């Protein structure tokens, strides 16, 4: 019995040693590649020091690294595909025009898989292992919340958040280049109030973005002498919207302001339209990408965005045509709700800031990005409003058509974000 126990015991120990060896090997594989990249980084550092010493005779030509973090797979996979293509398109364009500070730009793309826990991991990889100069990305706000500290605070790296969202993101090193509620809400609500439409029904899914946007709607409506006659929130994964549709119809409101996300968008809108709703239907998520899903009932919906395909701007039209030619598979994915204009805008604003700073150093870019401004952008000029970490954007009010296209009703011009003030 004793002998047996000893043999099995040592065999177990042997086995564990073998397993440890395996783990060790894998780890060694990882760290050796890291050592390599670190040596490289050190070499670069030494190089730049010498460059400074040699005073402007030699130029640093090592590539600038841009980290792209988006949901290539999972629930937001399709948005991620669009983001990746837009990032690649933009960087190719920048490189074709001489890069930034005379240095080529290189993308490091990671997949956050629509899961914040994965996002945190890959964000750390971008910042700590690839040592990128900037990170752009994230689709939903929970992704931003999970990665911003790792990138901007712990990692001291600029982070561009390229999406329209609920607002209030004022962390140092974080730059918001998408629309915030007041930019999407104020112009259209004021216009409707002026037209004499005074009663509003508000509805959306029960999470932060719809609640924040609709809170802004309520504020503007009440300030302008209108009245909110109903406010309803439904779960994110709702499929049966019939109860909500009846409430909307029963309210007889002049305006329905809605933020119901996919997959319930289409059945909800169809239900309201087919039910004979007579007021205006407005939303922050209507554009060419969504119209096709809603179908003919999309006819007449009002949407407000930082870009529509039909805006009267030849620069935007040409760029989007170029994009479609370069990325035929993603051609249909260049839309405001997929954040495509915001990605293009964010990368160019950062480029401007780096050029103004003369370096990619985070502390320097933090100063110059504060007032970065650029005109040649898809959707129109944009500029960071100093002290707010948010961008002043050109906004458009569009009316959806049954065929999915959008008719621009009004170019609202540049709208100032009310943030971080």
């Amino acid at each position, binding site marked *: 019995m004793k002998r047996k126990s000893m043999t*099995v015991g040592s065999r177990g120990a042997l086995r564990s040693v073998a397993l440890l060896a395996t783990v*060790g090997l894998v780890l060694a594989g990882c*760290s050796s590649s890291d050592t390599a990249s670190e040596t490289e980084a050190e070499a670069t550092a030494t190089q730049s020091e010498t460059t400074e010493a040699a005073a402007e005779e030699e130029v640093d030509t090592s590539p600038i690294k841009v980290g792209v973090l988006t949901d290539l797979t999972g629930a937001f996979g399709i948005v991620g595909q669009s983001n990746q293509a837009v990032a690649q398109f933009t960087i190719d364009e920048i490189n074709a025009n001489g890069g930034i500070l005379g240095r080529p730009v290189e993308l490091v793309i990671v997949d956050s898989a629509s899961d914040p826990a994965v996002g945190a*991991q890959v964000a*750390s990889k971008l910042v700590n*292992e690839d040592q990128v100069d900037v990170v752009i990305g994230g689709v939903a706000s929970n992704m931003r919340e*999970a990665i911003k500290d790792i990138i901007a605070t712990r990692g001291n790296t600029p982070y561009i958040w390229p999406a329209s969202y609920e607002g209030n993101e004022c962390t140092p090193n974080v730059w918001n280049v998408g629309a915030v509620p007041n930019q999407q809400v104020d112009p259209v609500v004021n216009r409707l109030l002026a037209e004499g439409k005074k009663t509003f029904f508000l509805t959306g899914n029960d999470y932060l973005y719809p609640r924040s946007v609709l809170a802004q709607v309520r504020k503007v409506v009440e300030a302008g002498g209108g009245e909110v006659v109903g406010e309803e929130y439904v*779960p994110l994964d709702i499929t049966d919207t019939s109860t909500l549709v009846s409430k909307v119809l029963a309210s007889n409101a002049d305006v329905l302001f809605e933020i119901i996300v996919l997959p319930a968008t289409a059945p909800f809108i169809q239900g309201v339209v087919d039910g004979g709703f007579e007021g205006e239907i407005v939303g922050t998520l209507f554009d060419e990408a969504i119209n096709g899903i809603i179908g003919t009932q999309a006819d007449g919906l009002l949407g407000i965005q930082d870009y529509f395909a039909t805006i009267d701007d030849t620069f935007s039209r040409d760029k989007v045509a170029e994009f479609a030619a370069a990325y035929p598979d993603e051609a249909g994915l260049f839309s405001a709700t997929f954040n495509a204009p915001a990605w293009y805008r964010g990368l160019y604003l950062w480029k401007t800031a780096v050029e103004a700073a003369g370096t990619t150093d985070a502390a320097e870019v933090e100063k110059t990005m504060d007032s970065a401004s650029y005109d040649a952008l898809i959707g129109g000029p944009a500029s960071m409003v100093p002290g707010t970490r948010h961008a002043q954007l050109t906004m458009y009010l569009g009316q959806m058509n049954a065929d999915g296209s959008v008719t621009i009703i009004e170019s609202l011009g540049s709208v100032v974000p009310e943030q971080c003030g």
Partner: protein
Amino acid sequence: MVIKGRNAAAIAIIVAIAAASPFIFIFGNDYITGTLTRILILGLLVLSVELAWGQTGMFTLGQAVFFGVGAYSAAVVAKDYGITDVIAILSVAGFAGLIIGLLIGAFLFTGRRVSELYVALFTLALAYAAQRLATSWSAIGAANGIPGIPFPTLFGLKLDSGPILFYLALVVFAIFFFICLWVVNSQFGLTMNAIRDDEERAEFFGYRRQTIQVLVFTGTAGLAAVGGGLFAITEGFVSPSLLGIALSTSAVLWVVLGGKGTFLGPLLALAILQILDRRMQDAFPQFWPIAIGGLLLITIVFLPKGIMSIPQVLRERKSQRVLRHSAPIREDIQ
């Protein structure tokens, strides 16, 4: 017997990690350190599934619920109440897990015997419900979760760098790892196995099956919750996916690949997959998910005890013929 080997291996692993870690900090970076920290934290979740399912036969497909409960309680305590002491935070997290685990365990196991499938479906539904609740509950950040959780402190010292957080995770992991090992190796552990292998037989011996199952289930819930608490304070954020189906089933996957009931195997599978995962995903984005699926199928079909049974399978194949003839047969009794 096997216990000796298991103990030796366990101590060897912990010592090796501790000894190797300085080299990782010198040659690696915060991403590698972070990955290793995460392995240790998820290791607590994996241990809890191994104890509940691998050792006691309670097929929990919702263990991330407790991980998430721990993570969220830690986040609330640290952020809203400003308590950053790591011992206090982890105690609150663990205690929250124990309470929820006790409620669910009592509901599932105090009545008549329920099938493994029933437990699996119930806990799976629970994970779904928990994630939905967290997604829509605005007090805990709804879909956005809780970001910006402050770094933990220990006796007033701020634990705010990757390597320090790694050692924190290592110490917490080692403590619970040895507690679990000690439980599994005790006579109580033998009883857990008896309930796993044949619940009814155990009852007919007079074992208070319900009490034991509720106790183990509650304990594993607390263990998972401590892991969740550790996740919250080291990663600095929590989000609804932490208590959802995806993480729950991942934990089960690691246990299956590593070898259910082998104690060390699941941890090993977790470590290997976590280290490989990001790199393989980046290198072979199309191929890697398929490879993982294939690996799982191969394991289920050929290695019912996961990677831990590879040496055993090889050994048995070699000595199969011998075994067949030397199987003990009792001819008579004197």
